[in-house]
């Protein structure tokens, strides 16, 4: 068993992980430091692709594809649309105001994360966390197995989330409307109703020709 572990965790796997992890971190850093929002979005897409590779190395095949389809595909496309709508460049990369306080906040966050990492690494839970990964079954992380679990044991949250998506779409439409849009819509509706009430009496009169209909409509 031990030999099996050392055989599966070989040099190619280490190099692959190092490359993917490096790409992920570099992409993430680029995302938060770029001045141009379009470049930031593109680097986030790259980060997600690298992350999908990391997921695949964790035998999470379904999640890796989902990451590409949903995150890199759908959500990032949404971001690109919004960037195009807003069409603004960031004038300052990092705002100067309150810089000291925010810098302290970042340092504090970094310290906390480092503390957390060291606690997790040094705790006696390390056998769970530190050992080389055991070889999973052949259908671990495949669409079939995750789907089976999703539609039987986790059917309830699945339905709840589908309801959430419906209401979120409705809400998203509502919250991005502007008052001018509202007034324009009302105006159009009013005009349409006006035109409908003008034409309807003519159509009730038995089958006049188009010319007489237009003639009578012109008189009203």
């Amino acid at each position: 068993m031990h030999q099996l572990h050392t055989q599966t965790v070989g040099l190619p796997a280490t190099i692959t992980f190092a490359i993917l992890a490096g790409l992920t971190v570099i992409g993430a850093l680029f995302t938060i430091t770029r001045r141009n929002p379009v470049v930031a979005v593109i680097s986030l897409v790259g980060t997600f692709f690298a992350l999908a590779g990391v997921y695949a190395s964790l035998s999470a095949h379904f999640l890796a594809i989902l990451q590409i389809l949903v995150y890199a595909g759908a959500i990032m496309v949404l971001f690109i649309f919004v960037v195009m709508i807003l069409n603004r460049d960031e004038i300052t990369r990092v705002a100067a105001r309150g810089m000291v306080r925010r810098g302290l906040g970042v340092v504090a966050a970094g310290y906390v994360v480092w503390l957390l990492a060291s606690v997790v690494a040094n705790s006696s839970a390390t056998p769970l966390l530190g050992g080389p990964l055991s070889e999973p079954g052949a259908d671990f992380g495949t669409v079939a197995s995750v789907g089976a679990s999703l539609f039987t044991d986790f059917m309830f949250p699945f339905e709840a989330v589908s309801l959430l998506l419906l209401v979120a779409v409705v809400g998203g439409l509502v919250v991005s409307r502007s008052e001018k849009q509202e007034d324009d819509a009302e105006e159009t509706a009013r005009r349409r109703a006006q035109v409908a009430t003008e034409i309807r009496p003519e159509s009730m009169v038995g089958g006049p020709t188009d010319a007489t209909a237009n003639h009578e409509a012109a008189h009203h």
Partner: protein
Amino acid sequence: MPTLYYLYLSFALFFIGTAGVLLRRNALIVLMAIELQLNAGNLALLAFSRSLGDLKGHVFAFFVIALAAAEAAVGLAILVGMYRTRQTINLDEVATMKR
């Protein structure tokens, strides 16, 4: 690869996301940094799931992706609504309500 290395990567991503939220003032970049944080959590879930041999982590990560998509969509819609009202998406300029 030991699970721990994946956890280190997720810690790094989480920290980068938090730093992005704290340092950047462009609301769009901040939303992207939040997505980084959520992905860090997803990575941790999948790493644990692999080392435990349990598929619950995968299902949880699936839901996180779905919910993150909904939250991103709503966040972006609010951003667009804000832009239509104020013509800015800079979090510092958006401060009409005094403390």
